[in-house]
């Protein structure tokens, strides 16, 4: 089996709200990032993978099996949702023993395995404290520990970096990479921030408004961000000559000058070319630039461009 997940024409709706819309994806082994803005359908996809909900239309296979009403499959999947569900009055170790019990692990195996996963997520020191006193990063790590406990083949991590500070983010990113490289788990990890996923894997799939928009190597996605049209704002003095020069260039679609002549919006088809030639044009025009900013240098713009 080369793909851990195969989804074909999945649609899922909640009343009048569409969660997924004709969504198709093949997730290979290794680490795969699912990237999309909030409300794109990432969590809906994860809930379908774990059999929490069922598809309205379409076909889904996880590790070769249908997930809905298939508790046996859950022995091979470890799920770490994006929301907080940890009971505050339980200690970390007690929580893991609870999870071990749910998975039917016997007492001897439980004790050893709990120590092992606590070591993997670096929570040995704090395992005997109440989870109510844990920081956000510690809670994330305990959640991941709970997902790892039964040695699943596939790990599903839904937005594991949300709400964490940069130090914790780095730790979790390194942990995710180790989970695959060192411990051999396949991982599907979701986020709305491309560069966070980029630090974990090069294999990504983009999801937007419930639809699969693109999938492949992250460098191809990055290229899209450079290739699609950009709206760029320029502010400064003496912009009129610069505007005249820009209008003569083939990559410029349109220019809108502000009434006070101290700012303008430039729409360009090829942002890379624009930025490459801008310094020369500024020197030729003799203007003073105070601000240059692309309003579309983000993933949301890529999505809008791809979806059309």
């Amino acid at each position, binding site marked *: 089996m080369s793909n851990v997940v195969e989804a074909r024409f999945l649609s899922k709706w909640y009343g009048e709200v569409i969660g997924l819309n004709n969504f198709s994806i093949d997730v290979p082994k290794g680490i795969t990032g699912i990237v999309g803005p909030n409300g794109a359908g990432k969590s809906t996809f994860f809930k379908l993978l774990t059999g929490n909900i069922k598809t309205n239309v379409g076909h889904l296979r996880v590790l070769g099996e249908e997930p809905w009403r298939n508790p046996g499959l859950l022995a091979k999947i470890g799920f770490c949702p994006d929301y907080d569900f940890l009971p505050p009055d339980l200690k970390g170790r007690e929580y893991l023993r609870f999870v071990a019990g749910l*998975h039917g692990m016997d007492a001897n195996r439980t004790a050893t395995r709990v120590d092992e996963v606590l070591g993997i997520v670096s929570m040995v020191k704090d395992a005997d404290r109440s989870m109510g006193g844990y920081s956000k990063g510690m809670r994330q790590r305990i959640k991941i520990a709970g997902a790892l406990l039964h040695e699943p083949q596939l790990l599903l991590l839904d937005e594991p970096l949300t709400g964490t500070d940069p130090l914790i983010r780095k730790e979790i990113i390194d942990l995710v990479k180790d989970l695959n490289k060192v411990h051999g788990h396949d991982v599907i990890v979701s986020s709305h921030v491309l560069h966070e996923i980029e630090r974990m894997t090069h294999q990504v799939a983009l999801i937007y408004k419930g639809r699969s928009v693109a999938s492949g190597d992250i460098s191809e996605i990055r290229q899209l961000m450079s290739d699609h049209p950009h709206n760029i704002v320029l502010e400064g003095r003496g912009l009129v000559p610069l505007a005249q020069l820009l209008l003569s260039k083939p990559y410029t679609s349109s220019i809108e000058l502000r009434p006070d002549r101290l700012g303008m919006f430039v729409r360009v088809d090829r942002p890379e070319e624009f930025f490459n030639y801008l310094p020369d044009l500024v020197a030729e025009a003799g203007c003073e630039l105070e601000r240059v900013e692309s309003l579309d240098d983000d993933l949301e713009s890529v999505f809008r461009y791809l979806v059309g």
Partner: protein
Amino acid sequence: MSFNFKGLWTVAAFSARKLLMNRRWMLVLLLGVLVASVMGYAATEDGADMDFASDLMAMLLLAFLLPVLSLIYGASMIRNEMDDRSIVQVITAPLDRRISYLGYYIGLVMVLCLLITAVTAVGGLAFLMFSPERDGGVQLVLTFIVLQYLGVMIYSALFLLLGTMLRQPIYLGLFYIFIWEGFVASLPGSIGDLTIRHQLQSVASELTELGYFTSSSGDGAVAALVLIALTVVLVLAGAFLFREKEIA
């Protein structure tokens, strides 16, 4: 997939622990004090014999405390976990949801039996302490405890099902206890037979000759069978519903 007995026990034990660690025990303590005070005071009045004790316990415990505690704990057990999404741990474990539901039910019954035993024992002892007549008192208390265990099983099954089905199970539960069982069932005719309370009273009439149970209509053995059968049906219905439910 082999039967995950450990998983079933884990759900039962942890959900029972969650119910007991909740601040609701303060309410149970308050109710226990109320029951003890009322029964202790009633025992000091003239004519406070075992018949009176039986009627008192029937009113306080069977008709009020038992269904209300079952509602408070039963309706919120699965519903709270669905609302705060902590149920994700159970539904993403390799455990058939029907078995998980059974685990919740077992946990609920264990906790309610414990609480009811404590409150009944305290109330009964309070009466016996102040009553001049004590013959048969301990037997009466034990009879009520056993009767209430049967009541716990059926009420738990009913309210756990309501909690699984409805977003706001409390209101239907209150309607059932106070309108259906409390009021409609006291109307003339056989409509009163369609309540759990009536069936429990029929069972009680077989177990004791004290109090107004002696005038209860209906066969106790049949009533017990009906209650057990209804419990099984409600638990199975709840288990099936829980398996089919999409939990987002």
